[in-house]
């Protein structure tokens, strides 16, 4: 009994420490937007809404959030669908050199996210006439994210018992039906994880959208964030903090939606 009580105390202490660690850095984001002339100091705000008014008047700020949603949702959707199909195929059908291929692609994917890759990617986009196209950007971002997504997805696919699929197959389901009816629901936590991961990657990505989209009306919030500086490069903290707060709201909503609708947890399969 005492052990149980101690366990509870330990558990809640740990949780409290964790909460503090993850909350304290966020304080600035909730105080600064409501402060008239914010500095780097977290202080009790004077609860002004002027900063929000300024952001609302900003011609590109709010539309850019929509662009971010469009880009990240499009990319996440494409990544999840393509990665799920590919990972399923790679998990179930043995191809010679499959693992080596996956590792190679994964390693190459790291190079493509690096600064040095901007020239090839830009020129490729120019050649393919994908400059200034949000769809083009989505395709390029998807290409970079896919190897890691397939890699993660394959783990989830490998872990699902084959008898579910065999069972559906005996009942006459086609491979695509099997994926839709059986595999996808089974790996849904994995799909949700990868979807959120893809969104996170695109949501904060500045360099590629900036280089590939010249039309400011198409640019996402990450690019607009960088415009909230002065000509000398000084941060406009009131605008930045306010926009940052608005910038984070869609992803919080997305998290709540995804975790409620799909859940990052397993359904609790058959006891085995």
């Amino acid at each position, binding site marked *: 009994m005492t052990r149980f009580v101690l366990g509870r105390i330990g558990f809640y202490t740990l949780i409290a420490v964790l909460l503090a660690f993850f909350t304290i850095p966020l304080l600035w984001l909730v105080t600064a937007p409501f402060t008239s002339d914010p500095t780097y100091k977290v202080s009790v705000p004077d609860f002004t809404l002027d900063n929000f008014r300024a952001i609302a008047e900003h011609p590109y700020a709010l539309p850019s959030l929509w662009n971010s949603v469009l880009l990240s949702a499009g990319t996440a959707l494409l990544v999840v669908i393509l990665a799920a199909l590919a990972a399923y195929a790679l998990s179930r059908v043995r191809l010679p050199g499959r693992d080596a291929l996956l590792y190679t692609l994964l390693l190459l994917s790291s190079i493509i996210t690096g600064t040095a890759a901007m020239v090839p990617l830009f020129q490729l986009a120019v050649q393919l006439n994908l400059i200034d196209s949000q769809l083009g950007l989505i395709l390029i971002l998807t290409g970079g994210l896919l190897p890691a997504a397939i890699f993660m997805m394959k783990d989830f696919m490998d872990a699902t018992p084959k*008898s579910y699929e065999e069972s*559906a*197959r005996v009942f006459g389901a086609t491979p695509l039906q099997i994926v839709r009816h059986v595999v996808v629901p*089974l790996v849904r936590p994995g799909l949700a994880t990868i979807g959120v991961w893809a969104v996170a990657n695109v949501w904060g990505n500045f360099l590629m959208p900036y280089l590939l989209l010249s039309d400011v009306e198409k640019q996402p919030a990450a690019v607009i964030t960088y415009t909230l500086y002065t000509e000398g490069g000084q941060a406009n903290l009131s605008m930045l903090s306010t926009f940052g707060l608005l910038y984070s709201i869609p992803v919080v909503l997305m998290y709540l939606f995804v975790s409620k609708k799909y859940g990052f947890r397993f359904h609790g399969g058959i*006891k085995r």
Partner: protein
Amino acid sequence: MAAIELRGLSKVYPGGVKALDSLDLAIPDGEFFALLGPSGCGKTTLLRTIAGLETATGGAVVIGERDVTGVQPGARDIAMVFQDYALFPHMDVTDNISYPLRIKKVGKGPRREKAAEVGARLGLEHLMDRRPGQLSGGQQQRVALARVMATQAQAFLFDEPLSNLDARLRLEARTFLKKLQRELGVTTVFVTHDQAEALAMADRMAVMEAGHIRQIGTPAEVFQRPANTFVAGFIGSTPMNLLDGTVRGDTLEVAGCKVAVPVTAEGRLSDGEKIVYGVRPEYMAYSAAPAEGAFGGRVVIVENLGASHLVTLEAGDVSVQAVVPEGNEPAVGDDGYAVPRRDRALIYRDGDLV
């Protein structure tokens, strides 16, 4: 409903492992057929090949006079219960049962009706909106059966249908399955590694070893007249006594004792021949006093089987077992004698029944 026929069916895995070696088998319509054998004997591979989950590398599978060897599993008009039941964890019982109908594009209404009907038949009516994770093992098994029944397939295939249940439940389920199969009258093939299960449930069975069928027959045939020493050793809850012996004129010399030639082997043995003498412990008459044609020896172990005892005698350098009815059991260290029943004893030559 359909008969199943296998013609020269072979399955060789890449790498050369022969899982099935040119098997011939005919299962008539409506039969409850068991595939029995130790692990790795190919019985599950055989079942999966019938289902189409494995592709045969030679021979043919015929279901209801249709050659389905190259046909996709879904088009073979069969249904299968998997060892782990393969109930979809994300669907409730109704959806699980009606899944085959969903594939066949049956409307939602009729699907639910059918599921309710089959579910009710198997006593699942109060569980219809649960998920598999919330069901006991026995309930899961019945859902799996209900799902198979909902397909109205020509033949059912069960892969180890009872192995995931605990021992007590397994006996109940055995009876239940047999009754259900009788009522439905659908040709059913099931795989088991448990000889008792096969004996109890099957109309007929095939005993397999290393990709070959060693014997096909009714449970009684297989139990009473195992076609070879492999089957003899595998079938029966207590293993058959298989003792090396030599033919000495009209009698046999086995384990240093003189015993009579069994009825079935009369006139088929030649003098001096080396044979294996087989008799089930159940077919031994035990006595404390010496008797004609008996195996004699010291009692080394007495095992309680409930209503009877299994007594192990040390006759020379071999052990002989006999089942002794309760009240008659000897004590360890006693001398004992066991007389085999002549009409039940068997002779094997080079492993095969004479």
